[in-house]
């Protein structure tokens, strides 16, 4: 008579115990952001009582994936910002004496000061020192940026290793899940705690690289990068590789092929690093432009004891393009003077040819050539055979001069090896004209300002995006927490309900016991 009742009560107590376990698990994981709240689903199991039908996870998988995608974007922005902050810290324009503009302004001030007082030995020394400081500054900043670039290789390798590890772990979870699913049918085991672990790995993976994820009916996931390069499918995983030589991210197929997927990654720290590397390339190129501009433009006015080279002070982009202005160059020498005219339709090449083909000038030994500057501009160099021969341009564009800096870029920029001789042989009558030239050179070096401005704008843009996207991510996280997070209050209420039910059921056993005693006494 009491057999079925005992069985019902026993299954009820067992189910309550399991439910309490689940509630306790919820409470314990209340602070775990990846944990999904679980609800025991208890159903009637006639004729022997109740059974635990399911452990319901209050999760919206697709919402979580959307959150992960946003996380990828935010991580990518954070990484790029961190990198750009390092660059920013190299160019402290708001603290006196630390910015590159101080070096540039000091150099040009020293140059102009010397052009104001070319006999002043202090001004010469200041020019040399400020020029050397500027060179060192450019070289140091280049080295700093190269070092940062090398740093990104280290970070990238670390991230790629972690991505490969996470892919393996997720593949293993897929495998474990299949086993757990089979066991849950066979022995009523609960395998769903694996899903929390899976979600944690997916979140960590999304932080590193943006991925697309599909879930099957038992919770296994297929993970692939943007454009469908598979990382995990069932129990199999694929690896990524970083080629530090050309700074590319490669996907390794099972047949041994390696495909460059750098351009197809839209988020995650890997994307942030790739972006930062591209910014660094851009920044170093701009620093290079500044050095090349200095080498190409800055010249010293010299007297006949220092040089026989006469430079044309109007650089052109193309030596075969019309000059756009007219004038004449007069060559003064014993058999002269000879005047070579040029018009607005003449090209620099025309002028060079006119000089080289003039019989009197050739006989006198004058030679003109096109000079390719490091900044990709062109100019004309006329070499006079005799220090006493002079040249005059009607537009005052030709002067006996030599460059202050030599080299092809930051790597080899240096002061002209003859600079000390040159400084002792300045052409005093031309210094005021060179002071005028220096003003246009200063304007040319606003390249530095443009560079800083670009650095600042990129960083500001990244920060603004990051602020907006982080706010969105926080909102996604909050929404996700609302959906799947654990409310300890709620869990306590549920526990209290379970406690009451448990006590009621326990009381039924007492009553049964009393009924059995009463029955025995009656016998």
């Amino acid at each position: 008579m009491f057999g079925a009742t005992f069985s019902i009560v026993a299954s009820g107590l067992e189910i309550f115990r399991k439910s309490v376990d689940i509630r306790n698990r919820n409470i314990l994981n209340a602070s775990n952001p990846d944990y999904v709240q679980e609800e025991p689903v208890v159903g009637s199991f006639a004729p022997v009582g109740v059974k635990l039908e399911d452990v319901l996870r209050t999760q919206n998988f697709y919402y979580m994936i959307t959150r992960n995608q946003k996380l990828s974007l935010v991580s990518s922005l954070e990484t790029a910002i961190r990198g750009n902050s390092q660059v920013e810290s190299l160019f402290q324009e708001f603290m006196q004496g630390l910015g590159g503009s101080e070096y540039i302004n000091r150099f040009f001030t020293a140059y102009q000061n010397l052009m104001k007082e070319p006999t002043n030995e202090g001004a010469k020394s200041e020019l040399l020192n400020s020029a050397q400081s500027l060179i060192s500054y450019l070289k140091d900043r280049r080295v700093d940026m190269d070092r940062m670039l090398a740093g990104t290789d280290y970070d990238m390798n670390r991230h790629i290793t972690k991505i490969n590890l996470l892919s393996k772990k997720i593949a293993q979870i897929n495998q474990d899940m299949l086993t757990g699913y089979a066991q849950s049918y066979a022995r009523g085991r609960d395998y769903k705690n694996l899903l929390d672990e899976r979600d944690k790995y997916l979140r960590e993976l999304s932080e590193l690289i943006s991925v697309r994820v599909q879930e099957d009916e038992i919770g296994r996931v297929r993970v692939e990068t943007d454009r469908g390069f598979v990382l995990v499918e069932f129990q199999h995983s694929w690896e990524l590789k970083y080629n530090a030589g050309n700074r590319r991210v490669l996907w390794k197929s099972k047949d041994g092929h390696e495909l460059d997927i750098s351009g197809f990654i839209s988020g995650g720290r890997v994307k942030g690093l790739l972006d930062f590397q591209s910014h660094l390339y851009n920044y170093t190129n701009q620093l290079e432009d500044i050095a090349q501009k200095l080498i190409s433009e800055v010249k010293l006015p010299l007297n006949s004891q220092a040089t026989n080279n006469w430079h044309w002070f109007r650089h052109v982009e193309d030596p075969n393009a019309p000059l756009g202005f007219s004038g004449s160059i007069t060559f003064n020498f014993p058999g002269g003077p000879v005047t070579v005219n040029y018009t607005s339709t003449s090209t620099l090449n025309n002028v060079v040819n006119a000089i080289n083909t003039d019989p009197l000038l050739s006989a006198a030994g004058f030679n003109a050539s096109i000079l390719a500057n490091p900044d990709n501009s062109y100019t004309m160099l006329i070499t006079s055979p005799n220090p006493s021969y002079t040249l005059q341009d009607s537009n005052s564009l030709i002067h006996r001069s030599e460059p202050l800096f030599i080299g092809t870029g930051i790597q080899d920029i240096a002061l002209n090896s003859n600079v000390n001789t040159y400084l002792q042989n300045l052409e005093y009558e031309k210094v005021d004209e060179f002071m005028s030239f220096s003003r246009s050179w200063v304007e040319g070096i606003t390249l530095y300002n443009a560079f800083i401005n670009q650095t600042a704008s990129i960083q500001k843009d990244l920060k603004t995006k990051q602020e907006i996207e982080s706010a969105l991510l926080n909102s996604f996280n909050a929404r996700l927490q609302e959906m799947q997070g654990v409310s300890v209050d709620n869990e306590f209420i549920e526990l209290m309900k379970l406690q009451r039910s448990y006590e009621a059921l326990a009381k039924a056993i007492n009553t049964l016991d009393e009924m059995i005693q009463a029955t025995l006494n009656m016998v």
Partner: protein
Amino acid sequence: MKVPDNLLFSLFQEQDARIRKQLSDKTLEIATGKKYTSVSDDPPTTYDLLELKKDISQLSQYAKNRLFADTSLSYVDFNLKKIEDSLNFLYAKTIQAKNQVLQPDQLRALGELFSSSLRSILDRVNDQLGGNYIFGGASLNTKPFDENNLQYTASAESFKVWLSDNYQVEVFLEGGETFGLNAALSLATFASPGVNFNTGGVMNLTVGTSTINLNYTTTQTLQNVADFINSNYPNLLQAKVVQNPDDTYSLLLMPIDLSKEIGVSDTSGGDFDAGPTDFYSPNVLQVVKRIGDKLSSGRYPEDADLLLLQRALDRVAFRRSQVGSVLSQVKNLQPMHENLEDSLNKQKSDLEDVELSQSIMDYTRYKIAYEALMRIIAESKDMTILRYLR
């Protein structure tokens, strides 16, 4: 609605981080006095700041140039004044000598005075400032006047500096022009003003843009030529027969208008054709020497000498007035440069410097907000069921 504990914690963390960042930013602002610490804080401000730094640097260079011009021109003016004083003194002495009956020894003593004044003037015209010859033009370190022949030997260009993008001034004058009399003295000499020329010819005269071809014949004398010029070109030229220290006579031509350059040449083979150069323009030093030599040899000065000295004085006074006018403009630039520099520095300061009172107010505001947040969090946790379970 379910409010998971983790949600509350995340919200708290998020707000806490935000307010902490604001507090830390304000602390940094107050500590450094700078509104921005990195270039990306406000890119337009960064751009403006870099441009301002460049402008301030350029302006400061112009200010240095102005100071250089001011110092140099003041020194030039000082020297010109001393030279003018010397010439005035010599002029007075020459008039005195001309109007008095003097013994040859007295004339020779006056000659000595001229000689010592010449040395003093020579010191002045060959003076240096900061290693640069102030009357050597763009040569800077070439001594302008030869001590023996008193010729100008330095650059034919004055040395200029820029005081703004469009304004350039001469700071070291070209001595040849500064002390040149703009007169023409014939190299050909004649035994007497009244003796007929040996060979006739043509003199080509240019005064400013005017050109005169002057014929002279063997029936004419030096005095005839001077008189002809004075009567035919009274508004253009003044001609004088001058006695040289060696008792010979030369023709002196001077434009009436000081600013019009005179040039004379004679390639006709006549008496005035003395070779590649037929006439030369004596400078102030040469005039003083010439008169000094005459006095030293016991000769009285004549009208032409007084005229030459007067011309020298006019010339120096004229250059001095030019220097004075430039100097006054240079000095006027000082307040303008200073005001501009102040204005640029103020703009820079407005851009980058913090307004402390505002920052401290903000700091206090964020601090209060932070405390309020902490209290709200504490109170919201206190409202849970845990309170009833205690």
